[in-house]
């Protein structure tokens, strides 16, 4: 479904290299977790896949369903089913959640040749999705993320994912800062949105979400590269022992 090969990316403004040769293959039906220390490039990777203009790809490729993703604008990528749940969701004052989502849903539906929904139909459609993430209906009529608590923002990202029903989702630390109940709700949401023809990438610092969402693979990012890949056990080891051992291993390999 997604194939990232030797991906190098720099900050467009100043040329500083952040991604230094990422290789990653994700197949349909899979859930992957990406872990790694602060500043290792996890968010940058997610944003480059979604098409953030702050980064320039200098080498390598990103192929999605056989198509060169790097050629597409962020909105065109969304039309093809790519979704990014932001680590820091953006506030859009004056624009209600429901307005944004209806606009987004109908744009994507139109691009994919599906039927658009009128406001009433959309209201019904959205109702079930709210329940899925246990979100208060009032939040629909509030400005996007404005004045939302940390937990509400994260939940809102999953809610948006539920409404837009993407095929490939990058969830950037959606589990951070959630209490245990919220974590379970979000995990439930993720599980019910996974599927045979879809794929999900969880960027996380903690293995606790992996107790509820079962990953097919766990990767560790260090200094702009995937330093190691493994199964769920890798996540446990990292949580217990930290990243030091892996850093040493990487250094030894480099020599």
């Amino acid at each position, binding site marked *: 479904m997604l194939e990232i090969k030797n991906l190098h990316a720099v900050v467009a403004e100043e040329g500083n290299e952040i991604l230094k040769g990422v290789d990653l293959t994700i197949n349909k039906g899979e859930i992957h977790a990406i872990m790694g220390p602060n500043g290792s490039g996890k968010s940058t990777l997610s*944003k480059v896949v979604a098409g953030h203009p702050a980064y320039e790809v200098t080498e390598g490729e990103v192929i999605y369903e056989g198509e060169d993703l790097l050629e597409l604008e962020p909105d065109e990528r969304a039309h093809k089913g790519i979704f990014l749940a932001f680590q820091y969701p*953006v506030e859009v004052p004056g624009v209600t959640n429901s307005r*944004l989502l209806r606009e987004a849903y109908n744009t994507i539906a139109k691009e994919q040749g599906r039927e658009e929904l009128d406001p009433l139909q959309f209201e019904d459609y959205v109702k079930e999705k709210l329940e899925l993430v246990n979100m208060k209906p009032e939040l629909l009529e509030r400005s996007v993320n404005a004045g939302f608590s940390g937990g509400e923002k994260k939940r809102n990202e999953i809610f948006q994912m539920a409404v837009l029903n993407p095929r490939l989702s990058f969830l950037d630390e959606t589990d951070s800062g959630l209490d245990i109940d919220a974590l379970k709700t979000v995990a439930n949401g993720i599980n019910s949105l996974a599927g045979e023809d879809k794929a999900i990438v969880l960027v996380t610092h903690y293995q606790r979400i992996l107790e509820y969402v079962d990953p097919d693979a766990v990767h560790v990012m260090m200094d702009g590269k995937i330093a190691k890949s493994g199964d769920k056990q890798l996540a446990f080891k990292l949580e217990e022992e930290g990243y030091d051992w892996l850093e040493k291993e990487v250094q030894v390999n480099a020599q």
Partner: protein
Amino acid sequence: MSNAVKENTILKDLLTYQTHLNGQSSLLEKIRKESAEKVKNTPFPTTRDEDWRFTNLKPLTRGGDFVPDQEESSEYDPSELEEYFIPESENTRLVFINGRFSTEYSSIDDLPEGTLIGNLAEFAAEDNKIVEEHLNQYAEYEEDIFTYFNGAFLDDGSMVYIPQDTKVESPIHILNFYTNSDQDFFTNPRTLVVADKFSKSTVIEEHIGLSDNRYLTVPVVELKLFEGANVKHLRIQRDSRQAIHISRPVAHVAQHSKYESYTITLGARLSRNDPKIVATDEEVDFTVDGLVLIDGDQIADTHSVMDHRQAHATSHQLHKCVINGEAHSVFNGKIFVRQGAQKIDSFQENRNLLLSRDGHVNTKPQLEIFADDVVCTHGATIGSFEDEELFYLKSRGLSGEKARELITYGFALETIENIEVDSIHQLLLKEVERYSKSHRDEPEAKPVA
């Protein structure tokens, strides 16, 4: 070695038209005479004056001469006017056509006892005590030739009096229409609102250009709020794109009164608005919010004064501007806190969203505080679209155009949210939507020097 430029005498010259006015009220006659003297003795502003540094009056001084409106020359279709009437104000509507009171289109009925709403000139001719006591008492714009110019032509106008303990449920809708005309004309609308103790009312002051012709309008609005009075004042400026609109709305607010004004600036080639709120007593609460949506070659200048003369006042000013094309917005917001006026809580913010490369913003919030126990926050921002916000919306599938439209819409919305008159709220939503939709192109990048 003086390089003095000859003073522009456009307003002084127009005084010759004073003879066109009727002389039924000795009060008005007196104010006109005194004001005319002041016009003669007050210099016409230039960009060398601090208050006019950023705003050049060329659109006023260059172009055809102005004449007083001759009713015969005005062209309009009556049904055109009716489109602007709102159902909330069926019986509380004052209509002026090019400054002349229209008995035909105005509709005043079913008012609570003692309430007066009507043509200022008529009340003045009847020696109305309220008019005698309050007219021309509050518009203190020192050395301002435009205020005097308005006084020199004082005639038809709006008069609103709300008696003590009275609530006027229907908003009072004052419609100033400006019609198409063979010749450029000038008008000087005057509005007097006296809100007696513990009264409650809403006044909508609208300026509507029916065509795209050039005219000059210089509205002066005086509001007096007595103890505990509550007045909401909505001002909607939809003048013609060639009009010059120079307005002076002033409110004197007494103890425990509450004044809220919202000024929406959409039209005119050049508009200059100098709202002034004077807290004459303790414990008042006032709002002077504004929204400016301009494009093309429009200039919109707001110079406001929030004058806290006594202690324990709360005041709020959120002034938002969206600028596209080569438009130019100017903001100068003065907050005065006079000596001894302690416990003032004042908020002021001017936020500008600049949509184009050639748009222009000058902003200057200004504090002059002579008391020590006050909280004044003020600030100004000028920004374009934020990359992170655009990317967020695009990542949800919205095109760049749609994303910019939504951000513009959302930005503007905040200043009209509190407007409670439904027809007006809907109207402004539509205006904001229309503006946002027509300005969603990507701003051209600045050429690299």
